C-alpha cells in the first residue's frame, strides 16, 4: 500500500537528506560538483553545495543554519532565511527529503 503523501514544509526541526534518486558527484571532466537527478543535472554554487552536503539525514535545519553561519561568519537570521528558502525549493522539486 502507498503511504499518503503530503508536501513537506521546512522547519528548524526538519532533518533533510538527499533522496535515493539524487546524488552529488565530482565531475573530473568539468572540474565541478554536479547534482545528478533522473532528468536534470544541476551545477550548484559553493553555498548551495555546502547546504546540500549537510543534508546528511542526521543534522536538523537548525543545526545546518548554525554551522553555516559560523563557517561564513554571518548572522544566523540572514543565513536562516536563505537556507529555508533553498531547502523548501529543493524539497518542492523532490530533490531533498525533509
Amino acid at each position: 500500500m502507498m503511504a499518503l503523501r503530503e508536501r513537506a514544509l521546512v522547519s528548524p526541526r526538519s532533518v533533510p537528506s538527499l533522496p535515493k534518486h539524487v546524488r552529488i558527484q565530482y565531475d573530473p571532466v568539468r572540474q565541478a560538483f554536479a547534482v545528478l537527478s533522473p532528468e536534470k543535472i544541476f551545477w550548484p554554487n559553493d553555498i548551495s553545495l555546502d547546504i546540500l552536503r549537510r543534508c546528511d539525514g542526521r543534522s536538523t535545519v537548525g543545526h545546518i543554519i548554525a554551522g553555516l553561519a559560523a563557517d561564513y561568519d554571518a548572522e544566523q537570521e540572514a543565513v536562516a532565511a536563505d537556507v529555508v528558502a533553498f531547502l523548501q525549493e529543493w524539497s518542492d522539486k523532490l530533490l531533498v527529503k525533509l
Partner: protein
Amino acid sequence: MSEPLLPPIGMLAELTHRCPLQCPYCSNPLELLKANRELDTQTWLGLFSQAADLGVLQVHLSGGEPTLRRDLEQLIAGLSARGVYTNLITAGVGIAEGRIEAFAEAGLDHLQLSFQGARPATTDRIGNHKGGHEKKLETARRARAAGLPLTINAPIHRHNIEEVPEFIELALSLGAERLEIANVQYAGWALTNRDQLMPERAAVDRQAEIVAAARERLTGIMNIDFVTPDYFAIYPKPCMGGWARDAFMVAPDGTVLPCHAAQTIPSLSFERFGPRSLAEIWTDSPAFNAFRGTDWMQQPCRSCERREIDWGGCRCQAMAIAGDAAATDPACAKSPIHARMAMLIDEAQRAAAIPSNDEQFVYRRIGVVTEPA
C-alpha cells in the same frame, strides 16, 4: 564554430529495437534493426567507458525494450562502476522474476516505466499487447519494492488525452516521484500514424489546464513534466537541448546520432562506434557539426533573440515539414510556413472523422515498413 565545443552530458543508448509492444508512435526508425545487428556486451561496455571519459554523466538505457538484453545487469554495473547515473526506460512487460532486483543491485539509479493508457483496455490496445497493463502495474510494484525511484511516462495522443487525470492518479497510486505527460512527437512511427494520433485543439487546451492545476496541487508530492504538443505551439522546443550540444544517442548497431530521427535527413551520413571512437565522432563527425551552434541558421532564426534558447527547434521536423533540415522549425510562429501546422492538425481531424479510418494504426513491427512512408 562560434562557441567552444563542450563535452556531452547525456547519452541515450538504444540497446535493441526488439520490443514486445507495438506502439504506433514509437520513436524508433521505420527500418528496425534485428537482433543480429546489435552490439555485443563488450562493445557496449567499451562505449560506455569512452562516454564516461568524454564527460557523460547520465545514460538512459532504452530501446525497443532494453530488458530483452540478457546482459542488461552487466551493462548497468559497468556504468555504475564509472559513477554514471543510470536511468532504465522500460515498457515493463515480460521482465523475468528477480531481474528488477538484480538491476537495483547492479547500481541502477532510476526506472522509467511507460503506460500507453491509464485504463487497461487503452494500454493493451495502443501497445497491441494483451494483458500489458496488468504486467506494468506489477513492474511498478516490484520496482518500488526493490527501492528504485520511479517515473511514469505517459505518451499522449488523441486516443488517451482524456485519460490525463487518470494518469495522474495512477502515478500517485504507484508511488512515483515523477510523471511525464509527454505529447507524442511526430517523428518515426508517429509521423506515419500522424492522422490517427493528432489530438483536437480543445482537448489540448483542456489538458494544459489539467496539468497546470495538478502541478500546483502536487507541489512537493510528485513532479509532473509536461512535454507540450509541438503542432499546437508558438515556439519550438530546444530539441535535444540543441543539435549535438550536450547529448547524443546510440542506435542498437552502434551508429552514433545527434537525435532519434536524425537519419531522416538524407544529406547526412552517420558514423558507427568501433571504427571510430566516441570522442572522434562527437568532435569531428560532419553530421554532428552540420547544425551545431548557430552558424548554420537561416532567417528568421539567424537574427532571432531566441536562437540560443531553442536552437531553431527540431531539424528533423524542419526536414519533414519544410523539406529543408536547415529551415526554422515550422512549429515556430516565425516560420514562414507555420500555418502548415494548423493545416496538418485540421487534416488529421478530417481524416479521423471518417469512421472507417478510426484506429487503423500502422503498428510498429520489424519488417512492416521498409521505406519511409
